[in-house]
C-alpha cells in the first residue's frame, strides 16, 4: 500500500510518464469497449456499410428520404470508399498495429538482450563476433532490409503476425548494443564480485544479479523497440507491403493514398488512422521520457 502511494506521488512529479500512461489507459479502454460494440469479422472490412459516408449519428440511405424503412445506424467515424466502418477500423486497427509493435519489440528485445548480456559478460571471441555482427547490421538501413524481405514474400502471404516477425529482423540491433554497454559497466561492480564469492556461476549472475537492475533500461528499450517497430510497419504498409487484407492503421493509410481519399473529399478516411497513429506516438514518446527519468535518478526534478 505504501509502495502504491509513493508511486502515485512520484507520478505527480513525473508528468511525462503520467500523461503517457493516461493515454495508454485511454487507448486500452477504447479498444476493449470497441471490441464489445463492433463485430470484428464484419465491420472493419469492405461492404460492412454504405460507401463513402461521412461521420454521422443517424445514417439514412439515399434511397429512403424519410428513413422510415431502415433502422438508423450510427457511423461515428464514417465509412470509407469500400464500405468499411471506420470506427471498426479504428478499434481493430489500433489493436493490430499494437500487436505488430509488441511482437517485433518483444522478439527484438529478447534476442538483443540475450546477445547483449552474454557477449558483455563472457567476452572473448564470442563478444568479438557478436559486436561485429551488431555493428554491421546497424549500418544497414532498416527500411531497405524490410522492403527486400517483405516484397520477396509476396503480397498475399503477409499477415499481421508475419509483419511482426519480419520487423523483428531489425528490432534486435539497438537493444543488443545498449544492453551490452550497460552490462560491461555493471560487470565491474562489487556486488558481481560478491556474487562470485558466493559461488554463483556466469548465467546465475546474469539472470539473478544483473538483469533485475537493468529492468528500467529494458523497459525503456522495449518502448523504443516498439516505437521503432510501429514506425517501420507504417512505412512498409504505406508502400503497399503490409497485410493488405487487414485493417491495420498503416494499411488504411495505404488505401487512403491509393484511393486519393483527400482529393475525393473523404477527409474522415484519412483523419481516423492519422489521428490514432499520432496519439500512439505521443504516448510512446512521453512514456519513454518518463522511463528515462526513472532509470536515471539524476534527471529527477526535486519537488
Amino acid at each position, binding site marked *: 500500500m505504501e509502495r502504491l502511494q*509513493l508511486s502515485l*506521488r*512520484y507520478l505527480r512529479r513525473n508528468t511525462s510518464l503520467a500523461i503517457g500512461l493516461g493515454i495508454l489507459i485511454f487507448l486500452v479502454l477504447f479498444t476493449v469497449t470497441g471490441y464489445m460494440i463492433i463485430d470484428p469479422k464484419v465491420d472493419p472490412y469492405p461492404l460492412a456499410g454504405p460507401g463513402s459516408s461521412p461521420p454521422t449519428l443517424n445514417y439514412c440511405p439515399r434511397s429512403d428520404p424519410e428513413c422510415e424503412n431502415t433502422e438508423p445506424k450510427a457511423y461515428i467515424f464514417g465509412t470509407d470508399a469500400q464500405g468499411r466502418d471506420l470506427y471498426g477500423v479504428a478499434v481493430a486497427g489500433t489493436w493490430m498495429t499494437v500487436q505488430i509493435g509488441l511482437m517485433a519489440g518483444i522478439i527484438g528485445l529478447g534476442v538483443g538482450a540475450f546477445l547483449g548480456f552474454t557477449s558483455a559478460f563472457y567476452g572473448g571471441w564470442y563478444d568479438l563476433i557478436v559486436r561485429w555482427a551488431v555493428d554491421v547490421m546497424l549500418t544497414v538501413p532498416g527500411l531497405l532490409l524490410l522492403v527486400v524481405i517483405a516484397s520477396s514474400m509476396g503480397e498475399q502471404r503477409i499477415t499481421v503476425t508475419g509483419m511482426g516477425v519480419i520487423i523483428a529482423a531489425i528490432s534486435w540491433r539497438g537493444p543488443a548494443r545498449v544492453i551490452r554497454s550497460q552490462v560491461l559497466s555493471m560487470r565491474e561492480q562489487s556486488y558481481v564480485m560478491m556474487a562470485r564469492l558466493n559461488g554463483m556461476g556466469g548465467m546465475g549472475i546474469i539472470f539473478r544479479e544483473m538483469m533485475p537492475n537493468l529492468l528500467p533500461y529494458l523497459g525503456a528499450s522495449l518502448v523504443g523497440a516498439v516505437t521503432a517497430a510501429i514506425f517501420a510497419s507504417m512505412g512498409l504498409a504505406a508502400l503497399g507491403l503490409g497485410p493488405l487484407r487487414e485493417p491495420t492503421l498503416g494499411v488504411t493509410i495505404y488505401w487512403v493514398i491509393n484511393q486519393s481519399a483527400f482529393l475525393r473529399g473523404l477527409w474522415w478516411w484519412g483523419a481516423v488512422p492519422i489521428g490514432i497513429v499520432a496519439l500512439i506516438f505521443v504516448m510512446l514518446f512521453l512514456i519513454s521520457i518518463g522511463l528515462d527519468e526513472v532509470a536515471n535518478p539524476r534527471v529527477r526534478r*526535486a*519537488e
Partner: protein
Amino acid sequence: MSRDVVLDINDLDVQYYTDAGIVYANNKINLKLRAGERLGLVGESGSGKSTLALAILGMIKPPGGIAGGEILLSGRDITKLTEEETRQVRGREISMIPQGAMNSLNPVMRVNDQIIDSMIDHELGLSKADMLQMAGDALEAVELDRSVGHMYPHELSGGMKQRACIAIAISMKPKVIIADEPTSALDVVTQRQVMQTIRHIQEEMGAAVILIGHDMGLMAQFVDRLAVMYAGQMAEIAPKEGAFRTPMHPYTQMLIDSLPRLGAKGVFHGIPGITPLLRDLPPGCVFNPRCPQAFGPCQETVPQFLEHRPNQWVACHLYESEPARS
C-alpha cells in the same frame, strides 16, 4: 590573544523537504570563527557537517532551505543576500578547497586560466596582466613554481593538482577557507606536505580555516579548535587540548576513546548503536539513546549549547547543574 570574529553563526537551522518528511539537517548551530584560526569540523556521515559547509557557502538549494538563524560574515548576514550578492561573496571572501582535486580541475584549461577564471567572474576591475600576476603569486604561495601556471592538469601529480586547487581557493585572499577533506585522495606523505602548505598560507594571509573531515589524527596535528557534530546538532566545541584530553560531551569522549593509540593495541572501544536519521530524531537530547551517561532530563529536553568551561562549549545536561557562563 583576542582576534576578530570573522564568521558568527547563531542558531542556524537548515532543513530539507522531501517526500518522506522534513530532514532537520542543522539544528540551532552556534559557532564563532576567529580570524587566523584553524577549526576542525568532525562528525559522522549524516551529522550535518557538509550541510553546514554548504550553508556557509550559500549553496543550499531547494528542496533545502535555511529555516532560521543567521550567518554573519564580518557582521553581514550572508543568509539574507541575493543570489548575485552571494556569488560575489563566494570565492572572494569565503572559498572552498574541494575533496577530489582530480575532479575539480578543468582538464582542458591551463592552471593559470582556471585561477583567473573566478577572478574574472568577480569583476575585480583588474587588467589581465594584474590577474596573471596574482595567479602566479598564489602558485608561489602553495609552493609551486610559477611555470606550473602554463601547464594542464593532466601534467601534474596528485599533490600538485591539490595544490593548484588550493591556489584557486586563495587567489583572492579570502577571509574564510573551507577545506572539505582536502587530502583524502592523497597518500600519507603528500598529505602532510599539503596540510603544511595550507597552514603556511593561512598563517601568512591571516585567513581562518575550517577543516572538515573524519581523520581525527589529522585534526590533532592541524587544528586549534575542534567542533564535533552529531545528528544535525553541535555537540561540543573545544580547543584541541580540551577535546582530546578532557572531552566533555559523552559522544566526544567515546569518539576519542575509540581511536587507535600506540601502546593500546588490541583494545577496541566502539560506540554501540547507530546514528538516528535526520528526519526521525529522538526526543530530548539526540544522543540519549546511545549515551551511557543518560539520565532524567535527557529524554525530555534538548540541552542548550553553553560555555560550561572557559572556551569549551557543550550541549549536555550533565553540566547544567554547574553555573553556566554566558
